[in-house]
C-alpha cells in the first residue's frame, strides 16, 4: 500500500466515481421510465373526434389521476362506500358496453398506467327509450345521471379506511393481474402509500361535501363555484351551498354573440375561459406544459363549437309543434330567443332558488383570474362583478336537459309549466328512462326510486320556486308549446 503512487489513488477514486455516475444515470433513467415517462394512449382513443372527447387525455392523469390498478380494485374492496351495487356503474357514469372505463375516464401511462378524467365524465347524457333497452349516450349533454359527490367521497373514504394499505391492495391486485416484480415493489412501497396520502389530503378541501347540514348534490349536479373556491383558490370553507345542474356544452357557437356570458349565473365571459377553468379543475394542478394544455383546449373548443344539439328521438306532431311555435314566440322568446338570452339578468321577477348566487362573488372572480394568469394562461376569464341572477339559457336540445331550472328542481317540462306549488315536492333524479309524456326523465317510477337520488325541494338549494311563466296557459297551448320545445 505504501508503495502506491498518488496517480493510482486518483485512478481508483475516478473509477469509483465513474461507476457511481453510470449507476446513478441508469437508476435515474429507470426511475424516470417507471414513474414519469409518458406514453401515448392506444390508437383507437383518438381515432374519431367523438372517441377523443370521450376517452382522450387532457393531462388529468399526472396529478389528479389514480394509479390504474388501485382504481381497478377499489370498488371490489370497498363496495360499501359506493351508493349501490355495480361498482363504478353505481355512480351513474356513462359506460359503453365493452369499454374498459366509463366515458370521461382516461387511461394513460405516466410512468405507470393511471386513470384520469376528461370533460366527458360530466358532459355526456345517458337516456333510454324504455326500460327494456340499452342507453344512448349524447356527447356533450348534461351528465344528469352522474353522482359526482359520491365519486369524490368514495376516493377519499377509501383512502381513509385502515384497510387501504399495501398488503390488502396488493392481494386484490394479484388476483387480477400479474405485475412484474419491480412494479409490484413500486406499488407496494411508493404508489400505494403516496396515493393514500394524496387522496386523504383532499379531505380538507372537500370538507363541505361532508357537512350534515347540507343536502346531497344528488345525481347530475355539482356545487361548481364552491369547487372552484376550495380547490383553485384554496379558500377556507364558508357557509354557502349552491349545487346546480351540469350544463350541456354542445353548440358553443351560440356564445359568440356579443354580451353573452356563461355558466348558470353568467359567471364567466366566454367558452374559451370556461373550458380552461373547467379543464384546470380536471387537471387538479397547473398544466405541466401550457402549450400542450392550450392545444387540448383549442381542440375541445372547436369540436364543441360545431357540435349540434341532439335531435328528439321520438315522433313529433309537426302541426302541433307549429302551433306551439306561436305560443313560444309570445311567451318564451323574449327571454329565451332574444338579445336577453345567455346574458345576465336580475333575479327579481324570475325568483328561482337563490342559493347558487351566494356561492360566488366579485373578489372570488378577481382572485381566480389572478391564479390563472399566474400560470401564464391568457383568457378573458371570470366576470369580476357580483352575481345578480341567472342567465336565461338558450334552449337547444332542451328535451334532454331535464330536470329543469338551474338547480334541477323541476323534473319535466310539463311540471315547469305548472305553478310552483303544483310542481312535485319530492322526486328522484338521475334515472335514464325517458318520459315522453312529460318531456324529461322518469322521476317517480319504481326504477327512478331505485336508481335515482331523492330531490326534496324543501331542502337548502333545492327550491323549485320561480320561473312561473306560461303556467296559466290553457292546456292545449301548453301541449303545443311542449311539442315545439321537442324540436329545439
Amino acid at each position: 500500500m505504501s508503495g502506491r503512487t498518488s496517480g493510482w489513488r486518483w485512478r481508483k477514486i475516478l473509477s469509483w466515481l465513474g461507476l457511481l455516475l453510470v449507476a446513478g444515470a441508469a437508476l435515474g433513467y429507470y426511475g424516470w421510465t417507471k414513474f414519469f415517462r409518458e406514453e401515448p394512449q392506444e390508437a383507437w382513443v383518438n381515432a374519431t373526434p367523438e372517441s377523443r372527447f370521450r376517452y382522450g387525455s387532457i393531462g388529468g392523469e399526472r396529478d389528479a389521476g389514480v394509479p390504474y390498478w388501485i382504481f381497478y380494485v377499489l370498488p371490489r374492496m370497498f363496495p360499501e362506500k359506493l351508493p349501490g351495487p355495480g361498482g363504478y356503474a353505481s355512480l351513474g357514469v356513462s359506460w359503453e358496453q365493452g369499454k374498459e372505463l366509463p366515458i370521461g375516464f382516461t387511461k394513460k401511462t405516466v410512468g405507470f398506467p393511471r386513470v384520469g378524467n376528461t370533460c366527458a365524465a360530466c358532459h355526456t347524457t345517458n337516456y333510454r327509450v324504455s326500460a327494456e333497452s340499452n342507453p344512448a349516450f349524447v356527447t356533450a349533454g348534461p351528465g344528469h345521471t352522474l353522482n359526482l359527490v359520491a365519486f369524490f367521497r368514495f376516493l377519499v373514504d377509501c383512502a381513509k379506511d385502515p384497510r387501504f394499505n399495501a398488503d390488502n391492495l396488493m392481494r386484490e391486485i394479484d388476483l387480477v393481474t400479474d405485475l412484474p416484480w419491480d412494479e409490484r415493489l413500486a406499488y407496494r412501497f411508493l404508489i400505494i402509500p403516496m396515493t393514500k396520502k394524496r387522496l386523504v389530503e383532499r379531505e380538507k378541501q372537500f370538507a363541505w361535501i361532508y357537512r350534515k347540514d347540507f343536502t346531497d348534490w344528488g345525481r347530475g349536479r355539482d356545487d361548481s363555484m364552491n369547487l372552484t373556491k376550495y380547490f383553485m383558490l384554496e379558500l377556507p370553507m364558508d357557509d354557502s351551498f349552491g349545487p346546480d345542474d351540469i350544463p350541456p356544452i354542445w353548440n358553443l357557437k351560440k356564445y359568440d354573440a356579443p354580451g353573452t356570458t356563461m355558466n348558470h349565473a353568467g359567471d364567466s365571459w366566454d367558452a374559451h375561459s370556461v373550458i380552461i377553468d373547467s379543464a384546470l379543475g380536471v387537471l387538479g394542478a397547473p398544466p405541466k406544459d401550457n402549450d400542450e394544455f392550450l392545444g387540448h383546449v383549442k381542440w375541445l373548443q372547436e369540436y364543441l363549437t360545431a357540435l349540434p344539439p341532439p335531435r328528439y328521438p321520438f315522433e313529433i306532431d309537426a302541426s302541433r309543434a307549429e302551433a306551439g311555435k306561436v305560443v313560444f314566440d309570445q311567451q318564451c322568446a323574449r327571454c329565451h330567443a332574444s338579445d336577453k338570452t345567455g346574458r345576465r339578468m336580475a333575479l327579481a321577477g324570475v325568483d328561482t332558488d337563490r342559493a347558487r348566487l351566494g356561492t360566488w362573488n366579485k373578489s372570488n372572480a378577481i382572485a381566480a383570474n389572478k391564479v390563472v394568469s399566474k400560470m401564464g394562461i391568457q383568457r378573458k376569464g371570470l366576470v369580476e362583478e357580483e352575481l345578480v341572477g341567472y342567465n336565461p339559457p338558450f334552449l337547444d336540445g332542451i328535451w334532454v336537459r331535464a330536470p329543469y331550472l338551474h338547480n334541477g328542481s323541476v323534473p319535466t317540462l310539463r311540471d315547469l309549466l305548472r305553478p310552483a306549488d303544483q310542481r312535485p315536492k319530492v322526486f328522484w333524479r338521475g334515472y335514464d328512462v325517458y318520459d315522453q309524456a312529460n318531456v324529461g326523465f322518469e322521476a317517480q317510477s319504481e326504477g327512478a326510486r331505485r336508481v335515482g337520488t331523492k330531490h326534496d325541494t324543501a331542502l337548502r338549494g333545492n327550491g323549485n320556486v320561480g320561473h312561473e311563466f306560461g303556467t296559466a296557459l290553457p292546456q292545449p297551448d301548453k301541449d303545443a308549446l311542449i311539442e315545439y320545445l321537442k324540436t329545439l
Partner: protein
Amino acid sequence: MNEIFGATDEQGWLARLFAHAWVRVLALLLAIPTALAVLVAIFLLPRFLADRPVEYSAIEEHFKYGSTGGERVSGFPYWIFQAMPGVCPKLLPGGWPSLGFVYEEGRDLPVGMSRRNYQGVDRVFFNCAVCHTSTVRETSEGKARIVLGMPANTFNIFGFTRFVFDCAKDPHFSSEFVVAEIDRLMQQRGEKLGLLDRYVVYPVAVALMRERLLMLAGRFAPLLQDTEWGPGRNDTFNPNKILFNFPISALPPGERNAPVDFPSIWLQKPRQGMQLHWDGNNIMAEERNKNAAFGTGTTPPTIDLVAIGRLEEWLLTLQPPAYVFPIDQSKAARGQVIYAEYCAGCHGANGREFSAPPGTEQRECVNGNDDDLYGPRVGKITRLEYIGTDRRRLDSFSYDLAANLGTVYAGYPYRYCHYRKTYGYANMPLDGVWLRAPYLHNGSVPSLRALLEPTKARPSVFYRGNDVYDPKNVGFVSDLPEQGGRTFWRYDTTQLGNSNTGHEGKEFGTYLSPQDKDALIEFMKTF
C-alpha cells in the same frame, strides 16, 4: 480487479480479526445455524416452489381430469377435500357422491376435478367437465354411461357450495378434526402423514382455507337463500357479481333467483358467430369460456390458457352421442317436415346443420347498434315479450354487470369487450337435444313431449337429477322422487325463477295434433 478494489487490504484486515479466539468461536456459532437453515431450505424449496399439474395426453382424460389452472388460487388440498365429508358428516351424510358427482371406477376423484401439486401441497378443484359431463342409463338397473360435454344433469353445485361453506363454519373444521380424519383415510390406503404435514402444512392449510371460505360464504350468503338450483342448474350471473364484490343483498330483487340449466358444449365450431349464453349476451366463445373458467377457480394471472385451448380446439367438433333407443325412421321423416315448418327457422335445419352465415363469426368490440343481435334465426335472440319464458335469468344479467365485464382481463390482450345486455333469449341449436333435458333455459319442462304442451298441461312439479332415460317422453325420468336408492330433487315451477311458461302457442307447436307431435319428437331423436 483485485488490485483496483484493494482485496489485499481486506485479506489483511480479516486475518487480523480472526486472530482473536472469540471471533473464531462466534463465527462458528453463527455458521452452524446458517448452514442448517440453508440445508433445510435446500431440502424444502423444491417442494414449496412446485407447480405441477397432473397432465393427460389423451384429450378425453384431459377434459375429465386436466387442470384449467384453478387449483393454484382456489384449490382444496387433496386430503382436506377427501376429509371434508367425514369432518362434517351431518352436513353431507352421503358423502361427495350424494351431490351427483360422476365417479369412474378406480378413481379417487370425480370427473371434473383436477389435481395439481402447488406450493408444497396437492390441491384439487373443478374443471369444465364437472358441469359439462353426466351419465345416462337405459334402465334403472342398467350401467351408467358417461357422456362428455352434456349438461351435468345430476351434479348439484348448489348443494356443493352450501356444504363447503357450512362445513367451513362448523367447529369441527379445525386442524384437530381435519388432521385426524386425514390420518384415518390415509391409514386405509396404507399411507401416513409426514411430520411437517401434520404439524405445519395442514394446520396452516386448514386455517387459510377456513378464512377464505368464510369470506366467500359471507359474499354468497344471500344467494343461498334464493330459489335452490338443484342438480343440473346454477345461477350463472349472480355469482359473477360476487367476482366484482357487488353486495348481493343490495341488488334489485328482480335480478335474483336466476337459476339456469347447464348447457351442452358440443359442436362449438358451427356455433361461431352466434349469440352465446341463454340470453345471447356474448358472441365470443373465448370470452364466455374464460368467464366460465372463473367457476373452476381461475384468475387472470393463474388461468392455464394452453390447457383450456386444447379443450376449445377439441370442442369445436366434438359430437353428441346418437340416441340410444330405436328410432322409427318413417315417423321421423314425417317429423322432419313439421320441424322444417315450425322449428327450423329459429333452431337450424336439424341437429347438425345450424351454422351462422359465413363472415359473421366476429363482432366489433364496441358497436352501438345491437339490433342485429335479434331475429328469428338460430344463434340470434328472440325478444322476451315474444318467447314469454321466465324472465329472471334475463334480468340477472344487468347492464351494470355487462359494463363491469368490460374490465375483466384488463392488461391482457384478451380483455372482454363483447358482453352485451340483451332483452330476450337466444335461439339455441339443438344438437344432442335428447340429452339436454329438462328443457327451456331454466330446465322447467322435463321432456320434449311436455314442451310441446301448453304451459297449463306441463307438469307443475317434477323431479330432477335422475339419469335413467325416458324414451317415451324424451327426457330423463322425472316423476320419481327416488329410484334405486338415489333420491332426486323436487322442482317446483311456482318458485321464483322456475316458471315453465312460454315457448308456447301455434308457432311453437303446442297446437299440433298428437300424431304430429309424435313425429316431430321422433325426428328430434336423430339430433
